[in-house]
């Protein structure tokens, strides 16, 4: 499956499926913590209700929440630096993030490993007993669009190590001028770009 994605700031992004044919033009629009989905089959934009946010996004190992939640992790979690390691000559910070008491997050904690060049190497989701539930791992880091990015990531659930979802970046461009109209419901439905 291939798709295109546009992201503006830290709150808004749009994802559109380009192949295979049967899923073509299925799209997801994220604005803040709201998520809309569009399916040409039913020709309707639907806001995904809160109850569905924990469900799988397009059948993958990512949940809708994983997709929509961008960086509110910074505000809604307490963070602690666990340590620093070296990987391929770069410093990797290991950060433990524990959600605030009233945050709408079920995880007990998340542990991030982030390279000094801001590439996330690993994100681990733990339940409240400290048990690892799923891991998002960066498999390949490469230069793309002038920056170092995680080109290939894999989401893997601890329970089912034989199944995973991988995202591979084919190309990426930064600092593209995007109009407000990109992140609208009508654009989700009728791609103009």
């Amino acid at each position, binding site marked *: 499956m291939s798709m295109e994605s546009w992201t503006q700031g830290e709150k808004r992004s749009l994802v559109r499926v380009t192949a295979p044919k049967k899923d073509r033009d299925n799209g997801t629009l994220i604005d803040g913590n709201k998520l809309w989905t569009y399916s040409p089959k039913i020709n309707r934009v639907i806001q995904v209700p*809160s*109850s569905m946010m924990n469900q799988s996004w397009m059948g993958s190992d990512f949940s809708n929440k994983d997709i929509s939640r961008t960086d509110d992790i910074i505000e809604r979690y307490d963070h602690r630096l666990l340590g620093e390691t070296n990987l391929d000559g770069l410093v990797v910070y290991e950060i433990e993030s524990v*959600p*605030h*008491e*009233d*945050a709408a*997050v*079920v995880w007990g904690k998340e542990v991030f490993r982030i390279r000094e060049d801001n590439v996330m190497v690993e994100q681990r989701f733990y339940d*409240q007993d400290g048990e690892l539930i799923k891991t998002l791992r960066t498999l390949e880091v490469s230069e793309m669009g002038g920056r170092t990015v995680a080109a290939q990531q894999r989401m893997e659930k601890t329970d089912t190590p034989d199944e995973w979802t991988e995202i591979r970046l084919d190309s990426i461009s930064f600092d593209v001028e995007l109009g407000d109209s990109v992140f609208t419901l009508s654009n989700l439905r009728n791609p103009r770009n």
Partner: protein
Amino acid sequence: MKVVQISFLLASRNLWRNYRRTIIMLVAISVGAWAMIFMTALMRGMVNEMLRDGIRSLPGLVQVHNSAYRDDPSINNLVSMTDIEIETTFAAAGIERYATRVRVPAIISSERESRGVTLLGVDPLRERSIEAVGSVIAEGRGLESIDDNGIVIGKKLAGKLDTEIGKRIVLMSQDPDNEVADRGFRVVGLFEANLAAQEEAFVFAGRTVVQKMLGIDGRVSEIALTGDDYRNVELLLADTRRLMDGRDEVLSWQELDTFLGTMLGVMDGFVLVWIVVIFLALSFGLVNTLVMAVFERVREIGLMLALGMRPSGIMLQIIFESLLLLMLGLSIGNALAYASVIPLKDGLDISVVAEGMEMFGAASVLYPEIQVNDVVLANVVVLTLGLIASLSPAWRASRYEPVKAITKV
């Protein structure tokens, strides 16, 4: 009256003349009376428990809602008064046993599972006064204040969600603008309920916290009021209606849950039918005994008539005999019923048919309840109908022609 005295004396003496017959009849009446009271106690136990469970989960005897709420139980249909107005109004009227609650459908999620539940934002101090579902805390603690950050969920639900006390769960619902309203809560207590379904259906959190989460500060979905006697809610209903002054819908539990309301009426009817049926089954034996008693005493009856006793005196004798028999049988039967309920004080476990009982809305442990009015009813019905049944043999006895009676061998 001397005639009454002598009739009574004769009746009591005659009762023991044919002691085998009397004992058989006594056993029959005792068994009947026992069955009446014991069976009624079992049924009452079941239905009362059902009613209490039902009223606990409603909760309350009387509820106030926005008049559109019952048709459309959404967060947009809130009670017209704010919680402060409610508090002052009810306090002024001297009503104390009530609770205000926010009630919304919500999704509860743990790391592993999500479930649909009803989220109740409650004032734990007020909640205690209405004895609603959720007040029996099995583990952990109950909510402590109106702005308690914790959440109390059912024991069964905790199992399904694979969560436990001390862990956090997330609740999601919708605010009045149809936007997502969500929040994390820490599980502080697990409650237990008689019906499994209730343990999975309700979760409780502090009212202010829920109001804040939903963005409905100061507003509630329902006011639940309770009283002492679920049979008698008219006064409470009228008081509340007056207070709400037509702005909101005020309904009694019978109206809120017509199944429960009907159940109570049907039960009352059933008790009477059951008592009468048992009596009728007994009455044939009773009349038979009396007929035989009259028949074998024809000569004596003739003699007494010849000696100048009035027919009414004869009637009185037979009726006394019947009543004595009934009263004795009833006393034994009542005593037996009380005695057989004692070992069942801790409940009769019928969990083999638990799922069936849940279909009735009843719990799987039966606590027999002997209600004074049922006992009175049973005894009064038996004595009254027994009196009526003995009229015919008594009348016949009093109509004997003394001559024929005496000469009959």
